[in-house]
């Protein structure tokens, strides 16, 4: 897990440098890339934070880079910087899942607000991802019989019905049930069901 950073991709050196200067004044970590290729070369799925992309660049432009990242299942939020008259381009970028766009020249506060929201979105997503991962790990710890019992609990069956269905005694079902609750870390049946559904959803 790496530290959240603002990744900036822009071909104009002055633009890059000045943005870094500005964002650092707000206490943000900034990483600069001169082109989409340079960013892709450095990219891995552990990247945290957000990506600020210039739409118009020679070689790979901002939109191209965005699609490439989506192809790699990146969840990094993306902000596009557009120039005058690039609005249609920005709209299509939004449709493809970018967080927002900002038109040059921009107010530094607007930019900051956008970046902040992106960063929090990213950390929330990261937390959710972490929880779903832990549920999955807990499910792994269940035995075959416990998993069958869990499935029937989630389906809303009563202990008696579960015992009939699996051909075991009610007592045994109760033992399995308490084991499942313990292993999954659930305090109630409702919580258990929520956890189970999240792991499948």
């Amino acid at each position, binding site marked *: 897990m790496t530290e959240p950073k603002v990744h900036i991709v822009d071909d*104009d050196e*002055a*633009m890059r*440098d*000045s*943005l870094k*200067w*500005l964002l*650092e*004044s*707000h206490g943000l970590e900034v990483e600069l890339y001169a082109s989409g290729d340079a960013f892709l070369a450095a990219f891995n799925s552990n990247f945290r934070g957000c990506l600020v992309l210039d739409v*118009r660049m*020679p*070689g790979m*432009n901002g939109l191209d880079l965005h699609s490439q990242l989506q192809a790699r299942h990146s969840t990094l939020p993306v902000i596009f910087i557009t*120039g*005058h*008259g690039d609005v249609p381009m920005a709209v299509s970028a939004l449709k493809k899942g970018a967080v927002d766009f900002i038109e*040059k*020249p*921009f107010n*530094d506060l607007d930019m900051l607000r956008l970046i902040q929201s992106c960063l929090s979105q990213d950390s929330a997503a990261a937390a959710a991802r972490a929880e779903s991962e832990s549920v999955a790990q807990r499910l792994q710890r269940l035995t075959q019989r416990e998993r069958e019992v869990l499935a029937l609990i989630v389906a809303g069956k009563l202990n008696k019905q579960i015992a009939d269905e699996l051909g075991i005694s009610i007592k045994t079902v109760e033992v399995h049930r308490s084991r499942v609750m313990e292993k999954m870390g659930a305090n109630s049946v409702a919580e258990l069901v929520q956890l189970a559904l999240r792991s499948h959803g």
Partner: protein
Amino acid sequence: MMPNAAVGVFIVSMIVLVWLLQTREFDQQMAALARDVQWAEQTLRLHLQGDREFLQELAHEASDGQLASARFKDRSAQYLAINPHLSRIDWIDADKSIREAVTAASAVHEAGGPLAHPEQLEGFLALHGLDRPVYTKAYSSSHFGPSFEILVPVRRGPDFMGAMVAEYTVSGILGYLVPAWFSEKYHLALSGEGGQLLAQNAVAHPRNEDLDYSLDFDPPGNGVQMHVTAYRTDTSFAKELPILLIAGLSLLVVWSLWSLRNNLARRIRAEDALRAESHFRKAMEESMPTGMCAIDMHGHITYVNAAFCNMVGYAPQELIGAAAPYPYWSPEDQAQHARTLQRTLAGEVPRGGIESRLRRKSGGLFDARIYEAPLVDASGRQAGWMASVHDITEQRRARAELEASHQRFMTVLDGLDAAIYVASLDADEILFANKAFKNIYGYDAVGRNCWQVTSACHPDPARFIAAARQLAPHQTPLELHEAELQNGLNGHWYQLRERAIQWVDGRVVRMEIATDITDRMKMQELNSQQLERLQQTSRLITMGEMASSLAHELNQPLSAIANYNMGCVNRLQAKDFRPEELLAAMQKASVQAERAGKIIRRVRDFVKKSEPNRGPVQIAEIIEEVIGFAEIEARKAGVRVSISISPELPAAFADKLMIEQVVLNLVKNGIEAMHDTPRKARELAIRARANGKDFIEVNVADRGHGVLVETAEKLFTPFYTTKPEGMGMGLNICRSIIEFHHGRLWTVANPGGGSVFSFTLPVNSL
């Protein structure tokens, strides 16, 4: 053939004859030789016989005992004195001792001595059983050279009592026994057994080895041989005379035969040539369209040719022998014909011939021109007159037609607005000028020097006259030169076209057609003024388009400045800064401010309005400025721009801003054309180089969608566009601008995709 064979046979028979003569001569000589030799041999034998008889006489006396020594010596000495060929006479006893010896010269042989030579002894021993004399073999005596002996036995009854011996010297035999005339004539040699030479008479003369005779000399025999060879006699003139005569006569005959042969060949050739000539004349006479008619001194027709008969329609036999009035005289002109004939017979012949009207047998009349020439026979006396008759009816008609057509031609040429004249190429003399030409340059133009006459308006002759003078008639007609010039006299503009044509007399001449294009020129001027106005409009349109790009480009430095600035503000507010950090950021901000300033300056330069102002401009400079301007757009569209400019490219004569506009337009079009091209292939190549020595060519090549051949021309028409938001004025104006500069703008497909737009500009020649 025959003369050759005759000459050959003659030469062979002469050779055989001479050979026969020679052979006969040789045979005669051989016979004479044999006769002489036999005679000589006979003489020798007689001598030898005489010697034997003398010795036998001595032997006889000795056997009777009558011979005393004194008598032997007396007789022998006497005999030796008259027979010099003998060297010695000996009396030998039976015991082989020499009893008595008499020698011709100083005595060597002592009486009582033994026999000196083995040959003597051999001969002596041979005598014993014989009753006849014996000759010894030849031996070499110390005093007398080769010698031999005759031995005659002395017997009393059966008793052998010795021998009488005489010694012959071979040289003595040759010197004394052979007569002088024989020695003069022949070479005589004696050879002994085995062929060794014993003696020979003096070699006085060269020998003729062909005339040679050999025989055994017997007695003495014993293998002695006599060889006789004739001396080569001096060839006497008298003897050779017949042969020389024969040879001389033969040469004479051969020469005469040869010249006869040549003469014959010449004659045959001459006959052939005569025959050919006669056929040729006949054919000429038959084919000639000119009628020939001869009359004698009295006016009787003596000859007519086929053409004449065809002309008048009479057969030759109807005409020959006829006297005046001839049947072909036209009845109404009889009197005139008669007068003409009288004059002709009197010798008054007009040099240019006489034109007269003749009548055909069928009744039709025709015009003829008749030339008379005196007919002179082989002896040089005039025998009559030869008339050549030409039917000139057709000729007259053709001439009339030609005149009419010439008249029409002149009417047409004079009716033309274009001024036309024809001048010779060698002297530049005006041969013909039409009315329009004369109206400008005066009616006395024909015959004068064309350059003087047209000095107010003519192209530079140096550019085509030299080439025109090289032309052969079959290479005409040929366009030589074309120019548009203003006439200094009337201020009109003319399009001058120089052509080489073949003149009526066959030589190559130059024709100039000057078309008045004043109105067209005025229209053109008007058009270019309009275009200029249009172009100003277009410049404004282009500016509007560019403004959007510029705004975008300006965002870049402005945003950067704002960022640097706010970064500084934030740090200052938070009181969390290092001064050098702030300084660096502010310096960076001012660099960006400068960048924005440059962009704005470029816009100002572009917008600056100015009148067309042509002057020397460097194409490289123009391209550089346009690229400085267009690179924003190129970058935006992801297009790489490559520039290649030939080194030492001369300056163009152009309005810098206008050409910048053209280049910018082409560059923009190229960039836009590559909208759908894969990014990697987006390349715009700009190239400038010399086109000939008078023009500079600029190409702008893109890798875009290209231009279809059928739309290539439409591209340049107003209001045609392939762009959704285009007005269709760009390329049209570009072309107008380039044409205003006397250049050319065109497009071709780019090999490998896309299109190339090119234009030319004149080189600055000021």
